[in-house]
């Protein structure tokens, strides 16, 4: 029997607000442990939370970008569990009434686009970090991250493969990054993902028993963990076993998932509405304000590049992977209206220099204007593609304008030729006998002249150029001498 996988993903995205979700502490990363804390995020007795409006605005932006229904009234709820990185021993989250429901995002795999439905988007606060002493049985708590606003984005169980899961995550991440509400950094944990995985006989409509996967902190690990888990479950079922509901932890060093806790050991979070926070109201005014701030999103931009600029779908997808890269492309096209060649150049030369860090485009040493000028020189036939590449690399390394570099090179070449001409003249003047013998037919003497010139220039001259110039000068002397 053939089996198919059913995957649902829960993504946590850290919002790029300046201050925390329920207090005014800064969210800046990298400060000394517990320095970005106050009585509120430390969970002192008597403190109360006040919602950061910016966090709500960012959430509404994401909800709009994902075509969600935004609820006019939602509620914060307390998720109760004990852990030392959670100072109140409850997390302020949303449960029965999330801020947004029923959305979708588009994903692309193998050249095909498909919608993945979202169940909900809700707001919550992040926990702190535990640091375990490696030599002593002591753990330390750093609460700097405690209370940083998160949104949780929950997909419907509609994802069919690890590849689709990766495409879905990339799509979500690029929307978040486009909206400038999350930096999307998976390794640093500002974009995190848990997965619910089950398998069932192909064509079946009921869902199998699912396992929840945790600890996958890169796109590669998500795919690896999902593939391992799907294979494990199919093999188990084929052998007559049954999948049990449990939480499994992915181990990146071995590439396998292992049971962390069973359904029986699962936490009962005892959710209830947080009495310290009023029902959360999102009025039409806020929604409209956020709608007007929505930038063109990656999928729309990609389709426009295909439609209006004639760029192939795949290329358009690459170019719109980040808002900055797409902006760079569009700026360049404005000045050099040959989208295809601009796109090729960016996808090969520029991407090679960026080494896959598309966000690095923001600090690209070559400006769109510089690149446009360079491409224009190529189109005019002034320089070859090869020269353009060299110039581009030089410009990228030095941060200077490629066309200015080109002009300089040309000047240097010219001044080099004048200087070389003088040396050649001197060498020929100093060796009249050899010149006469050359002119009478002993052409092998050319090597002698080249050697002399190279000696005079301490080997700095371009031998090819020296060759050419010597032949020309000797020819001149033959005419003048006859």
């Amino acid at each position, binding site marked *: 029997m053939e089996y198919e996988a059913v995957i649902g993903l829960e993504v946590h995205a850290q919002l790029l607000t300046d201050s925390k979700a329920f207090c005014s502490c800064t969210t800046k990363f990298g400060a000394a442990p517990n320095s970005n804390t106050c009585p509120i995020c430390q969970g002192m*007795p008597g403190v109360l939370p006040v919602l950061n409006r910016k966090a709500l605005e960012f959430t509404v932006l994401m909800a709009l970008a994902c075509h969600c229904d935004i609820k006019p009234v939602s509620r914060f709820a307390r998720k109760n569990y*004990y852990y030392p990185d959670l100072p109140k021993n409850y997390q302020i989250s949303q449960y029965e009434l999330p801020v947004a429901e029923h959305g979708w995002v588009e994903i692309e795999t193998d050249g095909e686009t498909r919608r993945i439905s979202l169940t909900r988007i809700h707001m919550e606060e992040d926990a702190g970090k535990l640091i375990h002493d490696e030599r002593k049985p002591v753990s330390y708590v750093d609460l700097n991250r405690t209370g940083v606003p998160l949104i949780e984005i929950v997909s419907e169980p509609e994802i069919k493969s690890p590849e689709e899961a990766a495409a879905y995550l990339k799509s979500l991440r690029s929307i978040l990054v486009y909206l400038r509400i999350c930096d999307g950094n998976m390794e640093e944990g500002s974009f995190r993902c848990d997965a619910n995985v089950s398998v069932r006989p192909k064509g079946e409509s009921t869902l199998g028993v699912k396992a929840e996967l945790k600890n996958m902190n890169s796109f590669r690990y998500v795919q690896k963990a999902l593939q391992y888990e799907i294979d494990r479950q199919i093999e188990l079922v084929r052998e007559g076993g049954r999948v049990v509901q449990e939480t499994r932890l992915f181990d990146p060093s071995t590439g396998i998932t292992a049971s962390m806790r069973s359904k029986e050991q699962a936490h009962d979070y005892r959710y209830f509405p947080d009495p310290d926070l009023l029902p959360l109201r999102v009025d039409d005014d806020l929604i409209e304000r956020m709608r007007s701030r929505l930038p063109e999103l990656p999928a729309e931009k990609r389709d426009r590049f295909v439609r209006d600029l004639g760029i192939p779908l795949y290329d358009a997808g690459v170019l719109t992977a980040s808002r900055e890269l797409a902006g760079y492309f569009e700026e360049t096209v404005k000045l050099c209206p040959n989208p295809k060649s601009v796109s090729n150049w960016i996808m090969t030369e520029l991407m090679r220099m960026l080494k896959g860090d598309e966000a690095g485009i923001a600090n690209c040493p070559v400006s769109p204007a510089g690149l446009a000028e360079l491409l224009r020189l190529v189109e005019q036939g002034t320089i070859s593609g090869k020269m353009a590449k060299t110039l581009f690399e030089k410009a990228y390394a030095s941060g200077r304008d490629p066309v200015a570099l080109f002009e300089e090179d040309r000047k240097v070449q010219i001044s080099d030729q004048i200087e070389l001409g003088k040396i050649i003249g001197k060498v020929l003047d100093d060796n009249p006998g050899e010149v006469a013998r050359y002119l009478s037919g002993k052409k092998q003497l050319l090597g002698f002249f080249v050697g002399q010139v190279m000696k005079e220039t301490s080997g700095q001259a371009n031998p090819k150029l020296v060759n050419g110039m010597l032949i020309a000068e000797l020819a001149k002397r033959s005419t003048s001498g006859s």
Partner: protein
Amino acid sequence: MSELYELTAVELAALLNERKTSSVEITRAVLDRIAAVEERVHAFITVRPESALSMAAEADQRIAAGNQRPLTGIPIAVKDNMCVKGERATCGSKILENFVPPYDSTVVKRLREEGMVIVGAANMDEFAMGSSTETSCFGTSRNPWDLDLIPGGSSGGSAAAIAAGEAIMALGSDTGGSIRLPAAFCSVTGMKPTYGSVSRYGLVAYASSLDQIGPFAKNASDLSLLLNVICGHDPSDSTSVPRDYPDFTTFLEQSLAGMTLGMPREFFSKLDHPDVSRVMAEARQVFEGLGVKFVELSLPHLDYGIAAYYIIAPSEASSNLARYDGVKYGHRAEQFDSMIDMYCQTRAQGFGAEVKRRIMLGTYALSSGYYDAYYLKAAKIRTLITNDFKSAFEKCDAIYCPTAPTPPFAIGAKIDDPIQMYLTDVFTIPVNMAGLPGLTIPGGFSADGLPVGLQFIAPHFKEGLLVQLAAAFQQTTDHHLKRPQL
């Protein structure tokens, strides 16, 4: 001539304004009184003579500079669940025995702005869970009217302090009657304002949706001044209501003529204590003499009040008290063999029996599979009770009822019978459930000379009406002037 500690805040403020005394002098008188009677009354967990005298000296400077406010220089006791920066806040619990908050609660900030003198932290039931102060891990406060009796709780220390002359005014908190019950039992004036009118920021939470800070005073005029200090919107408390709060002293001289008070059948039918019934009837006559009409009415869901309260309050408490785990502050067990064991030992040692009972109740009520049957149902009852009051207020301006079913009872009488203890709050709990303002004033005395309180319940934000009722009654009667012999 009365001693300074026997005077009201209004009388003392007049003396201060006329430069006939100083805040330091008043504070010394109060501290001397504390020294004389505290051993017997035990109204305080912590008395802070040094900081009190330094606050008094500051108040005197303000008065000398002529920029005093109405209560500048007046000594006040603050229940030990409100954070005062740099002074320990125990909540009557071993788990916070050595906890020193690094910040001021909003009410304490307001007391400071007013220039009031905080004399100490008043005793209370542990985490405000109790009706007698018997659950305090620092020992039971005594009722100044009879030292063998409880003063009521949970803000028993605040009420006892005023009755014993150990403070001129006090702040308490009221989650199910914790201001009104001790006020009634100690024969002082106390109010639980509308939920949301006094900031809860810095009040150590018991049940967040029910907790409300309120004033204790010797009479309605003092109370109205303290209300002026503490009421107001606070952006640090999301449940604080932004609105214009009136000057409550403007209600002191208003006539009651034409006013209607409602008497809920469900309350009066439960009254089987002859002294309480007699006091209620006598006070009714006084009000009728002032032109007040009485109507009987029904609050049909009142009977479910206590049951619903003992789902909602413990549910919230089980979550609010989860933070006391030994990790960050407060008590931590010395011996443990794992993280979980550290939590368990710390909490087993740090919490008393009543707190543990409520944490377990709440944890159970919120558990998956039980949530709908308990918490959700209780929340529905709460809405029904709120609606009952709403319809009642179509028939009357305020509700008139007893504060407690009996006069104060003996220490030890109910502490081993939680249900009997819980029933003490039968008349006060519904007010918290509906978020309404409730007031208690001395109504008279039992045959044994024990205080009996009257309770008035008004629509949301009608504290002024309650002040008006209290002031008019106190202008006609002298129950509030009687002080216990110590």
